[in-house]
Structure formats: C-alpha cells, structure tokens
C-alpha cells in the first residue's frame, strides 16, 4: 500500500479557529494508508514547505495530502515542493478545508467533522493516483492579432519588437480603428492622429509584421502553439503590388457615398482610402457603390490608373496560416441612436453621437474642425451633451458603465467652448466618474474655467420643434424640470462590442458575457487571457476602456504571447481524459459534449480519439460516457466512487 503523508495547515487562524486541528490529527493518525500526519501554522511558507520535503524523504512517502486552502491558490506550490523532494508532482493532492469548510461554517464541531471527511476522501483519491508527466507540445512562433485599432497595433508592435513574427488582420481597408477618428484625446488634448499615425506607419514598415487589411478570420482550429487559421482576403479590385497610392482613381471616380470614417458627415468615393493617412495607403473598390459593378459601364478608375493596378476580375481569396497564439482586439461600436426612441430614434438631424462630434471637431473632418448644426450648417449656440445613453440602464438597454463617456463628454464640452466662446454647453449626467491620472483635474477645469453647466439628471425626451431640439430633462439637485431649446445635442451612446463579435466568438470557441464582451480567464489575476489557452484579449473587445488602459492591456497581451514564444516547448497539464479503446463503442456522445473540440471519432477504427493538446480536463466526457471508456487521469470512476463513499460513510 502507498505510504501517504497528511499535512494539515492552520492558515493562521483562518482554518484553526473553526476546525479543531489537534482533533483532526488524532482522528486521522490511524486511518489506513496514512504513514505520517502533522500540522503547521503556515504550510505554504518556506519552513512549511521544507517540512513537507523533509518528511517525504525521511518517511519515504509515496504521496502527500495537503489539507489547506483551495487548490486554485497553492496546488502548484505544493506540487513543486513535492517534486523537489523526489515524488511525482501529481501524487500531491489538496484537501480544501478553508474555502469549502472553515470559512463557510460557524459551528466548530461540525466543521471539524467535515474537515476530517474531506481529508479522508482526498486520501482515498491519492491512493489511486498515478504518476503523470506533462504533455509536450511544439510551438509555432508566429502570432495572429485580430483587429487593427490601437489595441491590435500596440499588441502587434510589442510582439514584433520582441523578435517574433506577427500577422495583423483588419477587416476595413485601413488600420487605425476608432482612435484614428478622434480629434483630441483627454486629458492632455494631444491630437489623436498625431500620436497614432507614427505607430500605424511603424506597423506597415516592420519587417516582422505581415499586415492583412480588408481581411477577416473565417475559421480557426488547433490549440495553443498550433493554431490553423483561415483568413478571407476580400476582393479590393486593386492590385496592391502595382498600386502606388497616387490617388488619381479616387479623384476621378464619379460615384459618391456617405463616408463611414466621417460618420456620414461627408462623402467618399466608391474607390477610396478611408482617410488620407490610411495604412496601407492604397484604395479599395466598394462594390455596392461602384457604377461599373452596378451598371456594367464606367471603369474610369481603370482608364486613369497610370500603373494598370485596377483589376475588376479580382476574387476574394482564402489564406491558410499556422500561428501559435491569437490576440483578439476587435474593439467596439457605438450603440445605435435608432435604439433610443425617447431621443428621436436617430431621426432628428441635430442629435448626433460622440464619434460624429469627434469628426466635426477633427481638423481633417468634413467640416475642417468647425462645429455646425447638421440640419443647416449654422454654428450651434446651445449644445446639450447627454451621458449614459443606453449605458447603466439594465431595464431597457445595457446595464454597464461605458467608462469613457464622462471624460469625453467633458472634453467635447471644453472643445466646444474653446471654438464657440459665446455658446453655452450643458452636460446631463447621472454621476461624474473621473478615475484616472489627471482626469478629475480635467473635469474641474471644464466645469469651473470653461463654465460648462453640469446638470445632474436624466433627459426624458428630445423632440424637434421650430427648428430647435427641445430637451426635456430634470435637475435632481434643485428638483426642477429643465427645458432647453438646443441647437445641437450630442449623445454619449453606450460602447458595445464590435458588431459581428458573436461570429468570431463561435469561430474561436471563446466565451463572452451577456453583453457580448469577451470573458477573461480571471477578472483580477488573468485579465488578458481568454479561457482558451493561447487566445488573448486586448482593448474594448473585453470591456469598455480608454486609450491608456487599452495600450496597457495590449502590452500585457503581447507580453503573454512573448512568454509563450520564449519557451522551447509547451507543457500541457496531463489531467486529460483518454479513451479505453476496448470499451469505446464509438457512440460519439463524448464528442458532442466536449466544449473544446478535443475529441473526434475515428470512423475507421470505430473509436473516439483525443487531441490531448486541446483537452482541458473538464470531465464532461467522463460523466457522459455510457461505457466508462472516457476515464480522466487521476479522476477515474474508481477514485470518484471511493471519494463519495468515504464522504458519505
């Protein structure tokens, strides 16, 4: 029989105050299989670990049970200690008598009895534990980054600067994302394009970065270190190898359509680059608005192109690539105004959203930085900014705070006052949230120096009357109803995950929350990892955040990627579920329940096979398998039955 050592931790008073540890030691001393039992105040401390190591050698133990806190916390610590004392780390098991016992009980007697049962059941498990070795996996040292906004750009540059290859995929014709649309950035008011475009150029020129714009990820298979990715390159109808970006085609194109980059404020051509500083600075043809594609006649761009770069025959193309990691940096979209019926449902011309106002403020926007009323082009003298539009409204819209609106609305009001000094700006708010370096000081400046009127209350209704937008609101501090005849209303509409995120989530098999934001592996300690190994998150795809936070998270994601690439090989936890081919009937049930696509039916052999690199050891297959063929290492039916019997006895 195995010689098992039991080590009971006091965790200071965390365990000892609710569990009678001397009683536990006495009770278990003669339990079958226990060769040694001992308690200590802090088992995870260096003296505690030394004690375990010493006893393993001294008593020639085959396995150890540490009765302490949750395995989430210190399983790895104790397994390392056991390994250094010469036993297989998977022969070290944790009995959780803190989170699942002392912390949740108030009766010491009962808690003590429960602790004894928990420890006994783990002793039973350990008796049947097998020695396991981590699974070795090779790594393709090439990173995929999805999304070319500031989050994707920063991630790509950091990985590339660590010396690894990066493929940056962007669905629109240029990288830059939402940040490229912004005018000046809070709280320092640096020009957004001035700080962003050098990074965009760096991406384009970086030897380690392969830029794939106008492209989308269509399919992903494989696992950490070994992903296989299919990317669709949309037809641009321009041969980028020949095109020099001279712009003659755009200049001569007769078809105009509202510009997405300028938030419909200005027009763009059917053959276009989204903005003059676009990277790559090469145009694409928007098929839906191209006269040739609609009528079969025109081809002016082809005639004027000096380099013969227009190719109406071009087809979309699927490129298959192998990568080791994937970073999702797909950003956000604004919640549509059409969803806000009480604010005109998007039908009132002089009610715009924050990004549209950014394009108005931007020197490169369609108004050359002049603030105008979209309805008549006049300078607005009364401007109302409304915050929390669609945010913090669990009953009707989104429950969360969009985080950046307090700051950008303050910035909007300030920039408005600087450009229209005799105008009046009002901000309706629920709270003013300015947590961030220099943010509170910025807000104070806006409220005090720029004399922006802050009104604490919600706006119930907007409607147009006599050429004005009537704002019906309330000031909850004075208790007064407020009615303002505004010239322009700017809605700080909620930040929502990029339109189409659901499709990508399905392709990547990662998780998202009920609002569509990607789920991180741990909200505090693993904020840039998804729950799938090798897939990382950066920027607003994970949660609303401002530029500094986005860049921070992107750098962290890049660092996680570099950590993986810095190793020779990857090691996967061997607590996987296998297949006993003698028992497997090939019924396929386990294939359906596996959330990681790790199991596949080999129809020739008539049995299921497991990709150990993908298996996360969740146990779904083991519990679903009707014949007991899917046994999980060190969680076999035999072990679980014995544990349950021990607990119930």
């Amino acid at each position, binding site marked *: 029989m195995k010689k098992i050592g039991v080590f009971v931790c006091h965790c200071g008073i965390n365990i000892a105050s609710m569990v009678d540890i001397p009683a536990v030691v006495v009770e278990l001393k003669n339990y079958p299989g226990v060769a040694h039992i001992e308690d200590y105040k802090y088992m995870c401390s260096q003296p505690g670990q030394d004690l375990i190591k010493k006893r393993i050698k001294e008593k020639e133990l085959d396995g150890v049970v540490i009765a302490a806190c949750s395995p989430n916390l210190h399983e790895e610590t104790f397994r390392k200690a056991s390994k250094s004392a010469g036993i297989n780390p998977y022969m070290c098991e944790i009995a959780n008598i803190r989170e699942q016992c002392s912390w949740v009980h108030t009766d010491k007697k009962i808690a003590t009895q429960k602790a004894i049962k928990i420890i006994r059941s783990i002793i039973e498990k350990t008796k049947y534990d097998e020695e396991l070795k981590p699974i070795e996996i090779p790594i393709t040292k090439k990173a995929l980054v999805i999304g070319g906004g500031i989050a994707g750009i920063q991630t790509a540059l950091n990985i590339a600067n660590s010396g690894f290859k990066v493929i940056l995929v962007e669905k629109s014709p240029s990288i830059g994302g939402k940040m490229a649309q912004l005018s000046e950035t809070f709280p320092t008011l640096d020009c957004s394009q001035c700080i962003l475009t050098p990074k965009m150029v760096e991406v384009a020129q970086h030897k380690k970065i392969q830029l794939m714009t106008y492209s989308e990820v269509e399919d992903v298979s494989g696992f950490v270190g070994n992903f296989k990715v299919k990317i669709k390159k949309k037809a641009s109808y321009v041969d980028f190898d020949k095109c020099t970006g001279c712009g003659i085609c755009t200049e001569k194109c007769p078809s105009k359509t509202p510009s997405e980059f300028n938030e419909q404020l200005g027009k763009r051509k059917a053959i276009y680059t989204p903005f003059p500083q676009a990277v790559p600075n090469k145009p694409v043809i928007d098929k839906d608005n191209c006269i040739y594609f609609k009528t079969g006649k025109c081809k002016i761009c082809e005639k004027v192109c000096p380099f013969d770069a227009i190719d109406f025959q071009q087809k979309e193309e699927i490129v298959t690539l192998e990568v080791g990691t994937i970073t999702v940096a797909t950003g956000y979209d604004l919640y549509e105004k059409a969803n806000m019926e009480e604010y005109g449902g998007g039908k009132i011309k002089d009610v715009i959203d924050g990004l549209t106002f950014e394009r108005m403020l931007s020197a490169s926007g369609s108004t050359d930085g002049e603030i105008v009323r979209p309805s008549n082009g006049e300078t607005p003298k009364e401007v109302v900014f409304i915050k929390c539009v669609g945010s913090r409204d669990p009953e009707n819209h989104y429950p969360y705070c969009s985080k950046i609106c307090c700051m950008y609305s303050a910035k909007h009001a300030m920039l408005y006052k600087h450009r229209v000094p005799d105008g009046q700006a009002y901000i309706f708010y629920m709270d003013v949230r300015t947590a961030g370096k220099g943010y509170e000081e910025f807000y104070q400046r806006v409220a005090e120096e720029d004399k922006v009127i802050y009104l604490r209350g919600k706006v119930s209704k907007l409607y147009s009357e006599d050429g004005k937008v*009537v704002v019906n609101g309330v000031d909850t501090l004075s208790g007064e109803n407020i009615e303002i005849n505004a010239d322009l209303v700017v809605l700080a509409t909620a930040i929502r995950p990029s339109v189409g995120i659901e499709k990508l989530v399905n392709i990547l098999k990662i998780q998202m929350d009920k609002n569509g934001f990607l789920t991180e592996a741990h909200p505090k300690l693993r904020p840039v990892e998804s729950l799938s190994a090798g897939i990382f998150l950066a920027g607003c795809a994970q949660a609303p955040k401002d530029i500094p936070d986005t860049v921070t998270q992107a750098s962290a994601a890049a660092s996680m990627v570099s950590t993986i690439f810095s190793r020779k090989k990857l090691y996967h936890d061997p607590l996987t579920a296998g297949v006993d081919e003698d028992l497997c009937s090939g019924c396929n049930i386990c294939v359906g329940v596996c959330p990681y696509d790790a199991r596949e039916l080999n129809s020739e052999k008539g049995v299921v096979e497991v990709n150990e690199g993908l298996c996360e050891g969740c146990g779904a297959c083991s519990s679903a398998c009707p014949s007991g063929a899917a046994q999980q290492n060190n969680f076999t039916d035999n072990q679980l039955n014995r544990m349950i019997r021990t607990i119930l006895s």
Partner: protein
Amino acid sequence: MEISYYPGCTLKEDAKNLENTTLPLLELFNIQAKELENWYCCGVSFSQSSDNLMQQLAPIRTLIKAKESGRKRLLTLCDMCYNTLKRSALFLLNDEEKREIINDFMDREETIIKGDEIEIVHILSLLKEIGTEKIKEKIVKNANGLKVATYYGCMTLRPKEIAIDNSDNPQIMDDILKAVGCESISFPFRNECCTSYQIVNEPDIVKSQTRKIVNSAIKNGAEAIILSCPLCHYNIDAVQKEIKEEDESFTTLPVLYFTQLLSLMMGIDPSLNDFSLHHINPKPLLKEKKLI
C-alpha cells in the same frame, strides 16, 4: 368568437360612448363581448393604498369571475382597468407566497387563482389581431384626410411588463388609423402622462399639461386628438373647456375615442356617440369631414 368583457365604472357613465361605439364595431368582426356578471370597480382608485395586499383584492376578484366564466380572455376598453387587472395578474403569478395569503383570505370565492389563467386584452391589441386589412374592408366612409394626433398616455405603455407596444414610440393606434386613411401627425407628447388623478387636488397641473399637449398637437397640424383612455379623455377634453373659459385666446381641439372615429367610418349608428358627453364639440369637424 366570444370574449369575456370587463367594462369598468366609467364605461357606464362618462365614457358610455366608448362602450357604445366599441361593442357594435366588434360585432362587425363577429366578436361577441360577454360582460362579466356582477362586476365591480377594477380597483384602480385603491391602488394608492399603502396596504399592498388589500389593494389587490378587487382586481383579483375580477380575475376569478373571469376564470369562472370559462373563457380564457378578458377584454377591457379602459386603459386604467387594463393596467390594474394586468398588473394584478402578474403580481399573483410572480409572488407565490402573497398569492397564497390572498387566496386564503378570500374565503367566499370558491375558485383559486394563480395569475396566468386569464389573458387580459386591451381593445387596441384585439384590433391589431384582427388586422388592418380586415378593418379596412369594413370602412364605408372616407376620413377625407383627417389629421389626427394619437394620444396614448401611459396606462397601456407602462410599466414595460404590461405594455401593449413600444413605450417610447407606440404605433399600434397609428397603424390602424393610417390604414383607414387618416393622417397621423408626429407629435412629441403622445406618450406623456395626462397627469391622471391630479385633477382631484391639483387642477393647475392638469391645465398646464393639457395646454402643452393640445398646443403641440395643433402646432403639428392635428385636427383632432384621438385616444383610448377615459381618464385621459376627461383631462384633455373637459379641462380644455376650463382653459378656454379662462383664456379666450386658447385654441381647442376635439377629443375622440378611436372607436368613435372607426365606428363612424364603418357606418355604425352615429347617435351611439352621444356627443353631449363631449366638452369640446367634435360635431363641426365631423360634419366638415362628412363623417356625420
């Protein structure tokens, strides 16, 4: 088709014309509204009571009567009754503990009620079910481009759980009226509160709100305000007359139940409208549009 029908107090007095024009209209679609026997107040006037279980008894007893009638659906014409009955049914359904207390308390009723047995249907929803195509078929008189301001108030729109339409942009009445040839003007106060029972103690609040509603409807080109709620009707119709008495310059607008307008267009006996109940006389407008 038969449907249980709960009239409510107002429908037998001030809003007789709402009932009198609705029931024959439903007959045209072969719908027989079967009035519940021995019904009493829906309970809306007790809803300010602080004892939140006692206030539920009246509507729950009505639900029990409806259940005992054997029919699954209960029609209401009055917005207030609709709101009260529907919310009480939901209250019962969602709070098992209180449901038991209430059922134990009501020792004279033999039927136990859970809350989901009876579907409370507002007349606008019933007409939506019939569909605009079928409604159009019954029209015999043209509206001659009558410009209407539809007024929904709040009782059929709030709270969200019982709303018959989008509370911020309701269309259910507009869809019907547009289909029969009326022009529905856009008008920002269509889903604003009429100020309800403020009429009892604070008539000035009602006056100022009615003024706002009527002025906006006129400004946007309306020739009449069309609604479904008897309390909204009183606050907007009767109060307009009071405003006019104080302020000669105030322009009034006739206020009609949407079923009055439909029944006239469907050729139902005009005398059922009992125009003497109106404080702002709609007859000149209806004559001008050749509806009477």
